[in-house]
């Protein structure tokens, strides 16, 4: 296994479509729930331990070798918002394109064929990590980090927040990112039924509101 492969996969410039998504930060900014770096930290922390943990565990399970189609179904059950299901599949399809160009494998081809409109992104990412020779905890780390780096980058654009402050928020979350990744990888060892389903009511509700906005900067 190559540690550098993890850097490639976790790089914000990995061309898999994430840059167009705010992870729920855009509606939170508009509704005044994120106004500064402290709010951003609270938002990221909440997202990390809910949607982030759930997604990280799905990725870890895929990296562990559990059936990606069963995981895709488990992801659906954990995503009551149709807007967020559509986003997850759209990003999954984009991740799949990048993954097949980067680390081609029959496993990725099989999932792409079974889900031509995209599987849930964490499942695709986990399978990509597996193909790249990475382990379940690597995949979980990657997803956990994305869960907070997406909103942080978006808030820099939305609020003109000082990028140093936004990056400091991410750095201070590092120990919790490690915890979430370890927790997700541990759950993945115990099979699909043991995967966490932590959810965040406001993220689900505001995702639906945001999807209906006629004018927005971010796709989600």
């Amino acid at each position, binding site marked *: 296994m190559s540690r550098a492969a993890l850097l490639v996969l976790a790089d914000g410039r990995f061309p898999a479509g994430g840059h167009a998504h705010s992870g729920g930060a855009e509606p939170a900014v508009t509704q005044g729930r994120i106004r500064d770096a402290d709010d951003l930290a609270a938002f990221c922390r909440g997202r990390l*331990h809910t949607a982030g943990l759930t997604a990280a565990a799905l990725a870890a399970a895929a990296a562990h070798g559990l059936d990606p189609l069963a995981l895709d179904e488990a992801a659906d059950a954990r995503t009551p918002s149709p807007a967020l299901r559509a986003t997850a599949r759209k990003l999954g399809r984009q991740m799949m394109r990048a993954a097949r160009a980067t680390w081609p494998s029959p496993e990725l081809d099989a999932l792409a064929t079974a889900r031509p409109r995209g599987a849930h992104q964490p499942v695709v990412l986990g399978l990509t990590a597996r193909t790249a020779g990475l382990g379940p905890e690597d995949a979980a780390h990657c997803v956990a980090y994305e869960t907070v780096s997406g909103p942080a980058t978006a808030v820099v654009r939305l609020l003109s927040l000082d990028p140093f402050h936004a990056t400091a928020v991410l750095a201070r979350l590092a120990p919790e990112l490690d915890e979430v990744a370890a927790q997700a990888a541990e759950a993945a060892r115990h099979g699909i039924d043991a995967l966490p389903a*932590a959810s965040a009511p406001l993220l689900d*509700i505001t995702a*639906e509101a945001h999807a209906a906005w006629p004018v927005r900067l971010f796709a989600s």
Partner: protein
Amino acid sequence: MSVRATARLRAEPDGRGSTALPLLESAGPLALRRTRSPLPEHARVTVVGAMSAPLNGDRLAIEAEAADGARLTVDAAAATVALPGPSTDTGSSTYAIHVNVGEGATLYWLPEQLVSSHGSDLHQTTRIELAPTARLLLREEQILGRHGEPTGALTTRLTVHRAGRPLLDQQLAYGPGAPGGWDGPAVLGGHRAVGQLFLADPSFEDAPLPARLLGPTAALTPLAGPAVLVTAVAADARLLREILDGALHELLDGLKADTGNS
């Protein structure tokens, strides 16, 4: 000192167009009473006496089954209040609800609020198995703290399988000991009342409802399978109930209009 109690009930068609309750077994603080149902085809069971339970350390459970073709409403006489209990070393309490809904059966599971009082520590799990043609209407409301007090520790997990496949899986964790950010802008945003209204109905297979906002802090969302979930947060129990009641009546009226019966 702590209580272990499992209440059980089973509903099945009585052969005369209504529903019988061949099993109705109270346990510990969970007293089950057959009450008069406003819906003629439904049997109705009301959970009474849960007002001062569970205490930390208690292990409470309800096992309920609506057999094929049965029509059952389960509700409660009062809110369930999770309490700390007399000593501090009893650990957390659990409240496990396990429900089976058979072919062509209908279950309305409409308990009152679950209130997490200061110092309490409760893990609630609700696990539901639906047959492919089962209908289920379920409400859950979590109130974080009694009036003016900080919340206790509360985790809930709602897992619904339909025909053995996962349909909904949601886990919530609030209060002391919960992972960080639960009160922040991604999760509750300072709201103290959280609720879900879940409706599974085979008719959604052909005619899924569109997603819709029910005000600034509530949304009705169609799931990937034939079911909808209303998710709402509110400042308090009363405001939350208003949102969920509005959604409940609308959903039931919609189904009546579609199917010509209730």
